[in-house]
């Protein structure tokens, strides 16, 4: 009941959640929602405008764009969530270790983080996929390679302030091991702010995946991934814009919904942040 009461006024959180819930439903029930097979090529029906039979028209191979957008939800959302989860867990773990132990360990980890932060994100991702070859695994690898450092930095800062609090001293006084204190006392307290960061990060990741796929370095062509669909549609941008518009809208809407959720979550988890930011 508590959560419900808090969210009642928080329209952003609610809108974001409903939209994401909708996308999730699309992803899960894609075969039941999509009217056509997303890979079904019908040359005679190519480049049809949006209409009665094809809600969003058809693309250059005569495939139903609506069905492809629906199936594309699976790739974009799933990949983005996987990448962000890995980044979050990795960053939280490494950052907690750095912040908790301090000293040489901290120095070492944070210098590595500094070096990695100096790389331009998308260029390193391009390099990794370029060298290892385009595939879903390499796409994830490329986005994790630099993605975790942001979380590491933020977690370390959070841990530095948490570890000075009384209950950490109390846990030590009761004979808690370092591992126990990190897992049971530090991480649960560092998690809520990181969750907000992660939610906002999902939208960045959706964009990165779409960008890499657009460049041909992510999910490969016949797969109905939104970025790849944009790429396929770009030759028709002037003649048949609907081929690009609908996947583009899907990307925009999913990014928007995660941003709404993130901002809403921040307001719920830390009501003070909003006052400060709105001044």
């Amino acid at each position, binding site marked *: 009941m508590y959560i419900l009461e808090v969210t009642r006024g928080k329209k952003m959180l609610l809108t974001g959640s409903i939209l994401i819930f909708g996308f999730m439903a699309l992803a899960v029930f894609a075969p039941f929602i999509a009217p056509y097979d997303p890979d079904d090529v019908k040359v005679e029906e190519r480049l049809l405008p949006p209409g009665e039979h094809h809600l969003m028209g058809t693309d250059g191979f005569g495939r139903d764009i609506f069905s492809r957008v629906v199936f594309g939800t699976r790739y974009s959302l799933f990949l983005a969530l996987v990448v962000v989860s890995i980044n979050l867990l990795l960053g939280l773990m490494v950052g907690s270790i750095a912040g908790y132990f301090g000293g040489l360990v901290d120095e070492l980890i944070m210098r590595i983080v500094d070096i990695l932060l100096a790389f331009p994100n998308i260029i390193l991702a391009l390099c990794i996929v370029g060298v290892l070859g385009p595939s879903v695994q390499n796409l994830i690898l490329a986005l994790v390679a630099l993605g975790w450092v942001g979380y590491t930095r933020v977690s370390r800062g959070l841990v530095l302030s948490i570890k000075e609090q*009384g*209950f950490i001293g*109390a846990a*030590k*006084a*009761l*004979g*808690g091991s370092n591992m126990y204190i990190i897992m049971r006392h530090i991480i649960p307290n560092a998690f809520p702010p990181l969750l907000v960061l992660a939610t906002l990060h999902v939208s960045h990741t959706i964009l990165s995946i779409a960008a890499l796929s657009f460049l041909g370095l992510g999910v490969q062509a016949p797969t109905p991934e939104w970025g790849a669909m944009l790429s396929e549609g770009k030759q028709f941008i002037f003649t048949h814009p609907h081929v690009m518009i609908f996947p583009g809208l899907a990307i925009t809407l999913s990014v928007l919904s995660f941003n709404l959720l993130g901002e809403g979550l921040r307001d719920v988890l830390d009501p003070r942040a909003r006052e400060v930011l709105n001044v």
Partner: protein
Amino acid sequence: MLLKITSLRVYFKSADGFVKAADGVDLELYPGEILGLVGETGSGKTVLGLAITRLLPKTAAVSGEVLYRGQNLLALPEEEMRKVRGRQVSMIFQNPLSSLNPALSIGEQIAEVLREHQGLKRKAAWQRAGELLELTGIPAKWIRSYPHELSGGMRQRAMIAIGLACAPSLLIADEPTRGLDVTIQVQIVELLHAVTKGVSPPRSMLLITHDLGVAAALTDRLAVMYAGKIVEYGRTAEVFRNPRHPYTRALLDSHPSNGLIATRGFSPSLINLPPGCSFHPRCKKARKKCAHEPPLVQRIGMDHGVRCFYA
């Protein structure tokens, strides 16, 4: 003897010199006994408690001996020390709101300790956590409450339940009644009595407090600390009836029931202690000798000692 502290010194290095938070402390604690450590703020009471459990920051220079059951805790490897904490020697901190983890329910916090130390399974740990809460006077149905949902007294009860989780032989309670209403203080004092004297065999406790009323109600023996040194020790009744050190007397006189008589001056800086007896600038009885020569502890009766030339 359960705990024997010999010439314990804790110095902190600061820009202006060494802060002598404990300067040659000798203390003895017998099994089943409650020893009160009283003194004003900044006299080094808390540091002493933290030194026993070795929870001081790394910047502290600690020397001397802390023998717990004949084992010198100060020489123990960190991993061994960790096993002593909680299982043998447990601490109850002041300010339970900051000493409880806000992200975990009180039940979880107790259960965690049990699982970590005694290897209990989840269900058994929860069961035991409920029992411990009941024992400290919190209805077991509140087991899923978070610290912010509890009142100050309830939080302190929960702290005590956590401290008792692994049945330690020695409790170190640092200002357990601080910040509580007087009526709640009484309840906490009763609870502390119940979990020490009321169990068999009785559990020992080192009670750190500046509240003489709490000390009088709970302790068997009393040690009075001033500027990092024990200035008087003895049986509680004896010290209250017959305080021999001028500081002890001043402390008792400052109590409202004794007329609220303020001691002149301020407690000295621990960096720059007065030469001779640390108390001499404030002492009514001070003579020339006090300013030059540091007094040693004199025994003035059965288990009653005082660090003063003219006691």
